[in-house]
């Protein structure tokens, strides 16, 4: 069995493009949630979102490429390029060895689909752009990363709603661990801001009318976000031999299904996935000192997640828990990837990112949630939770410098 480490990170997210902007926002606890722009804002019950505001496609792609690649997949490619540069690996090395590409995407090319449907239903035109299907498909992120980097190894996309990226990273981790691949480009990408798709979220009545305040007494729901994060994974032996900078080791991955309800989360399912990850990592629960929570900021999730954490770690667990969704929003299929990057960076810097926008404790969420300001703490083991609509749960465990 190979030990697997994270040696490269790339991020496109609402705090900015690139890892430095992302980490700066996390380290100071500055929420990147702001007024919704570009999609008939004002027609929704929620005025705010976590959007990538300073993104210009032509800074990264030719005009011809932008015809072929939806915003969500563009984010994935931009993040993958940064992660590769950051790892110090030459792309030729990845091409020579077996490199897996595993991405998570939930809703795919929503704005492309929306534009096509507007042509059909509103403008009464009889046809849509022939690039609609290849732009919309959820695997376009993985496909364009493979084409951009010339990687011909195993490549696939997991689509398990808000757990997509954790499932993708977990599978890539296991493939390297068992020797099926030597490197991985893995993470998630999402760009859900189309009028029709936002209307669908509005109808669910889970989006906050102000901001995202996970675990807070007056939380009012989630805030939708967009972006991508990609990680370069490789075997620890190879990374050490080439003198690579190691952000963190991935030591465990666990999955479960609630088998209960299509939208309401169950604490039993969440607890089962956390236990599975601990079992996979061969560590007792008491070793984990930080959890990057799923922490959506909805009334239901945060109470359920708290109950699950108590069930696994005890009624007064000696660990810190924060939800960075308060800073970068809920990016759906990319959420686990942004949070994996946040967790790896937290371990590297010895700084735990806070839960931003926090106004006070909810007795039903009695956890140490690192309210509003980051905390200096050199943690060895950290967990990152993702719990999806549909009850599909995926949990990763990372190990920092001991």
């Amino acid at each position: 069995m190979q030990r697997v480490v994270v040696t490269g990170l790339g991020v496109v997210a609402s705090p900015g493009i690139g890892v430095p902007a992302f980490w700066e926002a996390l380290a100071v606890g500055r929420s990147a949630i702001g007024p919704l722009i570009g999609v008939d804002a004002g027609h929704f019950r929620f005025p705010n979102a976590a959007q990538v505001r300073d993104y210009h496609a032509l800074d990264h792609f030719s005009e011809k490429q932008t015809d072929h690649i939806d915003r969500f997949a563009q984010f994935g490619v931009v993040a993958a390029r940064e992660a590769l540069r950051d790892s110090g690996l030459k792309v030729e090395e990845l091409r020579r060895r077996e490199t897996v590409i595993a991405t998570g995407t939930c809703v795919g090319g929503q704005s492309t689909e929306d534009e096509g449907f507007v042509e059909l239903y509103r403008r009464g035109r009889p046809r849509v752009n022939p690039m609609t299907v290849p732009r919309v498909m959820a695997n376009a992120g993985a496909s364009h990363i493979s084409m951009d980097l010339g990687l011909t190894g195993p490549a696939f996309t997991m689509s398990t709603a808000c757990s997509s990226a954790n499932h993708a990273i977990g599978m890539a981790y296991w493939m390297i661990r068992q020797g099926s691949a030597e490197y991985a480009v893995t993470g998630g990408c999402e760009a859900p801001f189309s009028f029709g798709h936002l209307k669908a979220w509005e109808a669910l009545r889970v989006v906050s009318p102000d901001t995202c305040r996970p675990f807070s007494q007056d939380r009012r729901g989630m805030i939708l976000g967009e972006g991508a994060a990609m990680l370069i994974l490789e075997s620890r032996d190879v990374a050490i031999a080439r003198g690579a900078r190691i952000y963190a080791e991935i030591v465990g991955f666990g999955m479960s299904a609630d088998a209960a309800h299509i939208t309401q989360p169950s604490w039993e399912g969440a607890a089962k996935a956390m236990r599975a990850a601990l079992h996979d990592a061969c560590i007792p629960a008491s070793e984990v000192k930080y959890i990057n929570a799923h922490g959506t900021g909805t009334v239901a999730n945060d109470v359920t997640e708290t109950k699950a954490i108590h069930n696994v770690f005890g009624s007064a667990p000696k660990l810190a828990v924060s939800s960075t969704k308060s800073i970068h929003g809920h990016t759906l299929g990319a959420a686990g990837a942004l949070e994996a990057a946040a967790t790896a960076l937290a371990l590297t810097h010895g700084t735990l990112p806070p839960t931003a926008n926090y106004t006070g404790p909810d007795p039903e969420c009695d956890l140490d949630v690192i309210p509003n300001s980051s905390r200096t703490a050199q943690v060895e083991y950290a967990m990152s939770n993702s719990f999806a609509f549909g009850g599909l749960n995926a949990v990763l465990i990372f190990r920092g410098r001991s």
Partner: protein
Amino acid sequence: MSDELSIKVLETIAATQRIAKETVTIDSTFEELGIDSMDGVQILFALENEFNITIPDDAAKSIRNVRDMVDGVRQLVEAQAAAEGQAG
């Protein structure tokens, strides 16, 4: 309470929940009718379409039984009628 509006609300709840009309009374709780949070959201959607109203999220959160729902819809329908009267 068996006016036209309340009958229509009861019928909408029954149709959305796919249960017999007679099962739903003004005194039914959501618990008795097996209405969970997702069912509740679907009923709100059906009522918005039926009465051409918009039910705010905050108002929706406090509704726990059929009577609350009828009262809430009545308030919104009356407020809308008053606004239209003023506009006219």
